[in-house]
C-alpha cells in the first residue's frame, strides 16, 4: 500500500496537541483533589505516545482534558493551533468531531448501526462526504471487510475495538486518543488492536495518544509518559514491556515526590 497519498494531514508545523501549565482540581476546599498539577506536554505529529501511571495518577484526566472532553481549572490546551479552553460547547464538539478520534475502553459502538455505519459515524453526523479511498484503506488495515454489514452484537470484543479504532481514524483526525483500548480484551485480541494502532502510525503518519496500565500495550508506543500524583515524573523512548514494567514497579511505595 502506498502511504504517500493516504496519510493524515501533517502540513501544519508544530505538535498535533499540547498542554501548557495544565491544572485540574476536582472538588473544593478540604475535599479538593488535584488531578493534574501544572502539567505541560507536547504530542508530536506522527508519533504514538503511551501515558502510564498508577490509579489516581491523573493519566485519564490528562487525556480527557487534552481531548476536549473535560474542562481545565487553569492552563491551556491546544489541538493544532486551537486553544480548547476558549471554546464553547458547540465549537468544542465540532473540533472533537473534525480533529479528534476516540477509542474508549468499552461501549464504543452504536448498537443499531452496522460496523461500516459506525466507522463513518463522525462524518455522517457532521454531514461531510466520506473519503471513500481513505476509509477503504483503513478498513483493509483492520481486516474486517467481510464483517462490515454486521451489527456490533455480532462481532467479538476484539473486532468491536478494531471497528472503533477504524472509526477513530476514518475522519482523518489530527490526533487519536485511546483510553485503555485493550482493557476489556484478552491478550490476542488486544494485540490485534494495538498492531492496528501501530500500523496507522507507521503507514498513515497518524498521531496517537493512548492511556494504559498494561506494559505490553505501552511497548507498542514510540514514547511513554509516566504520571504520578498529577505530575509527569518520567519519560521513556522505544519502550519494551520489561523496561516499562520495571519503571512501573518503581512507583510502588516510592513513586511519590517528596
Amino acid at each position, binding site marked *: 500500500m502506498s502511504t504517500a497519498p493516504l496519510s493524515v494531514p501533517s502540513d501544519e508545523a508544530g505538535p498535533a496537541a499540547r498542554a501548557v501549565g495544565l491544572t485540574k482540581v476536582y472538588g473544593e476546599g478540604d475535599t479538593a483533589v488535584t488531578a493534574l498539577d501544572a502539567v505541560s506536554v507536547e504530542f508530536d505529529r506522527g508519533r504514538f505516545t503511551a501515558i502510564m501511571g498508577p490509579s489516581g495518577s491523573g493519566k485519564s484526566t490528562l487525556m*480527557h482534558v487534552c481531548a476536549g*472532553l*473535560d474542562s481545565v481549572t487553569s492552563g491551556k490546551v491546544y489541538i493544532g493551533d486551537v486553544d480548547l479552553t476558549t471554546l464553547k*460547547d*458547540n465549537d468544542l*464538539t*465540532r473540533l*472533537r*468531531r*473534525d480533529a479528534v478520534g*476516540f477509542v*474508549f475502553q*468499552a*461501549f*464504543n*459502538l*452504536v*448498537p*443499531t*448501526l452496522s460496523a461500516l455505519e459506525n466507522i463513518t*459515524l*463522525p462524518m*455522517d*453526523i*457532521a*454531514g461531510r462526504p466520506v473519503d471513500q479511498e481513505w476509509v477503504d484503506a483503513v478498513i483493509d488495515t483492520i481486516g474486517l471487510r467481510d464483517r462490515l454489514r454486521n451489527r456490533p*452484537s455480532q462481532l467479538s470484543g476484539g473486532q468491536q475495538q478494531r471497528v472503533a479504532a477504524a*472509526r477513530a481514524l476514518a475522519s482523518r483526525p489530527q490526533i487519536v486518543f485511546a483510553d485503555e483500548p485493550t482493557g*476489556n480484551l484478552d491478550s490476542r485480541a488486544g494485540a490485534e488492536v494495538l498492531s492496528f494502532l501501530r500500523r496507522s502510525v507507521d503507514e498513515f503518519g497518524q498521531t496517537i495518544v493512548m492511556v494504559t496500565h498494561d506494559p505490553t500495550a505501552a511497548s507498542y508506543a514510540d514514547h511513554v509518559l509516566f504520571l504520578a500524583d498529577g505530575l509527569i515524573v518520567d519519560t521513556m523512548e522505544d519502550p519494551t514491556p520489561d523496561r516499562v514494567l520495571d519503571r512501573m514497579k518503581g512507583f510502588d511505595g516510592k513513586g511519590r515526590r517528596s
Partner: protein
Amino acid sequence: MLRSAWRSLLHHKLRLILSGVAIVLGVGFVVGTLIFTDTLNTTFTNLFADTSSDVVVTPAQDSGGRAFAGTVPTMPGSTLDDVRAVQGVAAAGGQVLVDGVSVVDQAGEVLGTPGAPQFGSNWSDDERLTPFRLVEGRGPSAPNEVALDSVSAEKSGYSVGDTVRLVTPTGPLSVTLAGVFRYGTSGNLAGATIAAFSTDFAQELLLGGEDAYTEIDVVASESVTQDALAAAVRAVVGDGVTVRTGQEAADDATAQITEGLAFVNIFLLVFAGIALFVGTFIILNTFSMLVAQRSRELALLRALGATRGQLVRSLILESAVLGLVGAVLGIAVGVGVAFGLEGLFGALGADIPTEGLVVLPRTIVVGVAIGVLVTVIAALSPAIRASRIPPMAALRDDVALPTRSLRLRAVLGTLLLAGGLAAMTAGAASGGGSGSQLVGLGVVGALVGAIVVSPAIAGPLVRVLGFAFPRLFGTVGSLAVQNAERQPRRTAATASALMIGLALVSALTIFATSAKASITEVIDRVIGAEFLVSSGAQRPFPEQVASDLAATEGVAAVAGVKLVPVQVADTGTLLVAADPGALGRMITLPFVAGSLADVGAGGVAVDTQTAADQGIAAGDPVSVQLPTGATLEYRVTALYEPAGAYSGYVVDRASLAEADVAVGDSFVYVLAAEGADLGQLQSDLEAGLADYPTVQVQSQAEFKAQITSSVDQILLVMVMLLSLAILIAILGIVNTLVLSVVERTREIGMLRAVGALRRQIRSMVVLEALVIAVFGAVVGLGLGVWFAVSLQRTLVDQGIEVLEIPWAGLAFFLVLAGVVGVLAALWPAFRAGRLNVLEAISTE
C-alpha cells in the same frame, strides 16, 4: 430483600414519579367516574325517596315516555272515592302531576334546566300524601293562586303576593303566588320545576277540567301491612289501574333512574377503562425498563444467593407499594375529576344540582384495588423475566433481559384484528340491531387485536413512516428511527395510548360529521317551510300560537304538528297529527303510494320501513291506542320512504279532536308569502309570540344549526373525555423517552464524544418521539375510519344516510399527534442534550 426493595424504590425517584403519575391518573379517572355517577344516582333517587305512601295507584296505561297535558293517562275521581272506602285506608289523596306548566321569571326567561320536566301539580295539605312542605305563605286554595317550589321561587325572585307569569297548556296565565314549598327534605329537583294549584284549578289547567288524577297515594292504618292494603285496594279498583305498594313504587322509580343513568355510567366507565388500560401500559413499560436497567443489580443479588422467588417477591412488593401510593393519590385526584365532570356537564346546560359529592366506601376499595392490582400485574411479567437472568450475567458487561418471540403475538393479534375488522364489515352489511352489536364487538376485537399485534408491526411501520427522516435530518434522523425500531414492544406500548385515543376520537368525529351531514341533507330535502316554531323538549303549546302566527303579515300558511305518544300493535311510537293539506305545503316526503293529501279523515300515512316491520300495506287497518286508553281506527292510505327523523304514522289532527284528545302543538311550520322579507317576518313572528316565552321561532338555517350544534356538543364532551387518554399518552411518551435516554446514557455520551452536538442529540430524541407518535396516530386513525364507516353503514336505517369523512380534521389529528409527540419529547431531549459527556461514557 424487603430493605432492598424499599431502597430501590427510593433510588429511582424520577422513574417512580413517572409511573406513579400513570397510576394516579388511571385510578383518578375511575374513582372520579364512580363518584360522579354515584352522585347522580343519589340525587335522582332522593327525588323519590321522600314520598312515603304505603300504596300507590296509577293508570295501567303506559304513556311510553313523557306524557304532556292532553295525553297523560288518568284515573277518574271515582277511583279515589273507591280507594278511600277500602278498609284499612287511613288517608288517600289524588295527585295531578303533569309536565306542562312553565314558570316565567321576572326577566321573561323560562325557569328550569332545558329538557327537565316543568310540572304543574295540585296542592295537598296532608303531609302524609305529598312530598311538598310549605315553607312560606299558604297553600293555593282559589283559582289563580299558585305555590312554587323553593328553588324556582328563589331563582325567579318572586315573593309571596307577587304576580307570577306562567305558560300553561291552555295559554299564558298570570296568577298570585300564595306560598312557597320545599320538595322533600332537600328541595332539590335536579333542574325540574313545580307549580302547584288547588286541585280543581290544576284539573282545569292540566286535565281539561275533568275530575281525574294521575296518581292516587294511600296511607295505611296502623296494623295494616302494605301488601295487605295493596291487595285490598286492588280488589276494589279492578282493571285499568296498577296498584303497587310504596316499596314497589320506590323500587320501580329507582330502577327506572338507574336504567336512565346506565348510559351515562357505562359511557363514563368506558372512558375510565380506557384511561386505566392506557395507564397499565405505562406502568408495564416502566417496570420492564426499570427491571432491564437493574438487571445487573438483580443478577448480582442472584449471585449473592437470592432465590428467584425472593427476586420476584421483592419486585412485586415494590410495585404493590407504588400501586398503593398511586391509588391513594388517585382517589384524591378522582374527587377533582368528579368536580370537573360536574362542571363539564353543567357548562353544557345539563345543570345537576347536587347535595355534595357522594364518595361510597366501595369507591375507595375499588380505587385501591385497581391501583395495586394493575401495578402488580403490570410488574409481574418483567419480574418473572428478571428472575431468569443468570447470576453470571452480573459479571458480564452487556446484560439483556431474555426477550420472547413476537411470533405468537403477531399471529394472535392479526387474527383478532382481522376478525374484528371482518365483524365490523359484516355488521355494517347486515345493519339493524344485530348489525350494530356485531360492529361493537368488532371494534373491541380490532382494538385489542391492534394492541396485541402492534409490537410485531411497529418495526416495519416505523421504518416506513420514518423513511424520509435520514434524508431530512441525516444521521440523527436514521438513528432516531432505529432507536424507535429497536424496542418494538416499547414503541408499540408507548404508541398504544395515542392509538386508542385517536381511533375513538377520529371515529366519533367522522360519525358526528356524517350525522350532521345526514341531518342537514334531510332538512334540505324535506322541509320547504321557512320557519319552524317550537318549544324545548317537544312540550306542547296552545293552538292559539299557530293561529297568531297565521295572522302575521307575510305568512302564507302555517301547519301545527302534534306528537302523541301511542301504542300501535303493542309498540310505543309517536303519532304525528297535522292538517295533511297544510303539512303537504311545508314538507316534501318521498311518497311511494298516495300523498299527504290522501290521508284525509280516518286515513294514515306510514313510512315503508314501519310498514314492513308491522307487516301492513296500503288499505290495511291500523289500530292506535291513545294514552287515555281510547283506541282510534285508521286505514293506510299513503306510504312514504322514511327520511331521517321523518318516519312513523301521520294522521289528520281532526281525528284527534273527534276523540276528545286535547293536546297542543309540539311545533308549527310557517311558510312565508312569496316575496316576503324573511328577516322582517322573523322579527314579526317573534314579536307576536311575546306571551309565550317557551316558544321560539327558528329559520330553517337556525334549526339546522341547533341540531348540528347539539351533535357538536355531544362530540365535544366525548373528545374532552378522550383527551384524558391523550394526556396519558403524552405522559407515556415522556416516560418512555426519559427511560430510554437513561438506558442509552453511554451511547449518547459516545455520540457526543465523537462529535454529535447537543442540538443533534436533542433532535434525535424528538424525532424518535415524533415517529412513535405518528405510528400510533396512523394505526389509530386507520382503525377510526374503519369503525366510523362500519357504524355509519349500520345506521343508515336510523337516518345516518350520508358518510362524510372530514379529511382535514383527520389530517389535523395526525399533525396534533406529531405535536403531542414533540412536546412530550422536549424535556427528555433537554435532559439528553445536557448529559455530561465524560460521566455518560463512564456510566455503568
